[in-house]
């Protein structure tokens, strides 16, 4: 509050506006730190989020041998799995865990409590999403290391498109995570609803088994964003030297991300629903 002197009387005038420059950015970084702390203080949850995709890679990688995938230009099946599970890891952290976390916080009244504190909404949501992105990035790095050390997979041939795809996927799936969290009526329903959606989308993506382009299933799966994520990531593992930018896949993901934001904005609630 600033003091204004008029006619010899001090009048307290409330400060207006909600952005405080660098001090706010430091507050975001601090909040991200506490989000990370909260995530790692629950080691089982943290391990499950990151370890699932690694375990799947190890199990499926052990059976892949020297098989190649014709529908992806003869890429090795091991490369396909490493690229695919990178997508799986991003989706697990930014979609599934984010959505379940938001529903649980809403239903516990935690969102309401933060809403009543001076922490602005954009800082809270920014910190939650950046936290999910850090977890997703850790998962991707771990998968690339396991692929390299365990199966001799060199990693992406096109690092630029790979990194951009991962970043766009983080944004897209975080937005979808926020969106679906608003459709879940209570904490009990969060796990089943979000996980079921996740596993259906993954099954349609062709991650467990490559889907031939042009098939009916591929046409149907192309409607959903996970198929485009897998395609874009697998493409970045393709032939070196050949120009590669998955613009269409990135575009589809961004459209889905925009849909997630639209649903989130329309249905967002700070109070428990307990429906």
């Amino acid at each position: 509050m600033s003091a204004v002197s008029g006619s010899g009387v001090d009048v307290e005038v409330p400060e207006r506006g909600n952005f405080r420059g660098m001090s706010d950015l430091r507050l975001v970084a601090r909040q991200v730190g506490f989000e990370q702390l909260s995530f790692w203080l629950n080691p089982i949850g943290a391990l499950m989020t990151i370890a699932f995709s690694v375990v799947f890679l190890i199990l499926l990688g052990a059976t892949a041998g020297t098989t190649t995938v014709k529908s992806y230009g003869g890429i090795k099946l091991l490369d396909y799995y490493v690229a695919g599970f990178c997508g799986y890891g991003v989706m697990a952290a930014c979609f599934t865990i984010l959505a379940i976390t938001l529903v649980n916080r809403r239903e516990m009244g935690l969102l309401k409590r933060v809403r009543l504190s001076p922490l602005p909404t954009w800082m809270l949501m920014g910190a939650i999403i950046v936290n999910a992105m850090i977890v997703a990035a850790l998962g991707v790095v771990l998968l690339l290391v396991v692929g390299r050390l365990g199966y001799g997979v060199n990693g992406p041939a096109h690092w630029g498109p790979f990194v951009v795809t991962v970043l766009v996927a983080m944004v897209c799936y975080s937005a979808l995570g926020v969106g679906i969290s608003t459709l879940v009526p209570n904490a009990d329903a969060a796990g089943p609803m979000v996980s079921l959606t996740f596993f259906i989308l993954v099954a349609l993506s062709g991650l467990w088994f490559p889907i031939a382009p042009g098939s009916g299933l591929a046409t149907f799966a192309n409607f959903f964003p996970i198929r485009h994520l897998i395609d874009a990531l697998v493409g970045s593992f393709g032939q070196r030297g050949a120009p590669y930018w998955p613009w269409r896949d990135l575009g589809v993901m961004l459209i889905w991300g925009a849909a997630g934001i639209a649903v989130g904005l329309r249905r967002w609630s700070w109070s428990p629903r307990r429906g």
Partner: protein
Amino acid sequence: MPAVSVEHLAKSYGETVAVRDVSFEVQRGEVFALLGPNGAGKTTTVEILEGFRTRSGGRVETLGVDPADRATQRWLRNRIGVVLQELAIEPYYSVRQVLTRNAGYYPNPRPVDEVIELIGLAEKADDRVKHLSGGQQRRLDVGLGIVGNPDLLFLDEPTTGLDPSGRRETWDLIHRLAGAGTTVLLTTHYMDEVEALADQAAVLFGQEIVASGTPASIGGRDLGAVTIRFRLPDGVTPSELPVAGVPVGDGLVEIHTEDELRVLHDLTGWALAGGYALAGLSVLRVSLEDIYLGLTRSGDPGEPGT
């Protein structure tokens, strides 16, 4: 300038009326209790004052600003503390971690160690929240409400679900905060809580205020009939008393009157003249609970609020 000023506040959700024509003021440094049954509109009123909900009508000022004005909302939230009706604390943080995190949201927070001391959790400071008892979690919840060093503290049913010692500890904490100059607005449906804590109170019923004043005078409590009770002197029968009394057992007699001064004068004059002792002489006013039940039992409670 009052800490809170409410004039003709109204809130509706479609056809459902949650609050209608509510007016009251809370002065700075005062403990103000909003009393009422479930669904009377207490929480809705408080949430509007906090800026969490918008109102449908009327005028509201919290610490001199309109809580619905987004431009001053952050300023306002820097200066208020809120303790919600239900516990809302992350289970994996330690007591110190969760208080430190929230302290960082405010420009002028209380030192975390001071808050831990105030809420009596010094020995549990490094324990995780999930390992605290219900009462300890509730105290931590209050700690989160005061860590920002608020000018105005909202307590929404702060002792619901606590055992008697937990309630007493929370009351002591509220007393200390009020003693240090913090304005407190609390909602409750416990009469003893109002009598123990509040300087002023208002009863919300049927989504509107039906009585307000100090706990001692609310609803005409200080003006109505009183009960004068004493032990009948040995060798005296009730018919010998200067005022008609009713034996209520165990040698006690009660006199119900709206003219307590005259009755006491007659009674004590008679006792002094006759050399009688009126053991256990007491004047009992109608209880706050009686007043409250009288206010909230009669009439149509209207549509439920939240």
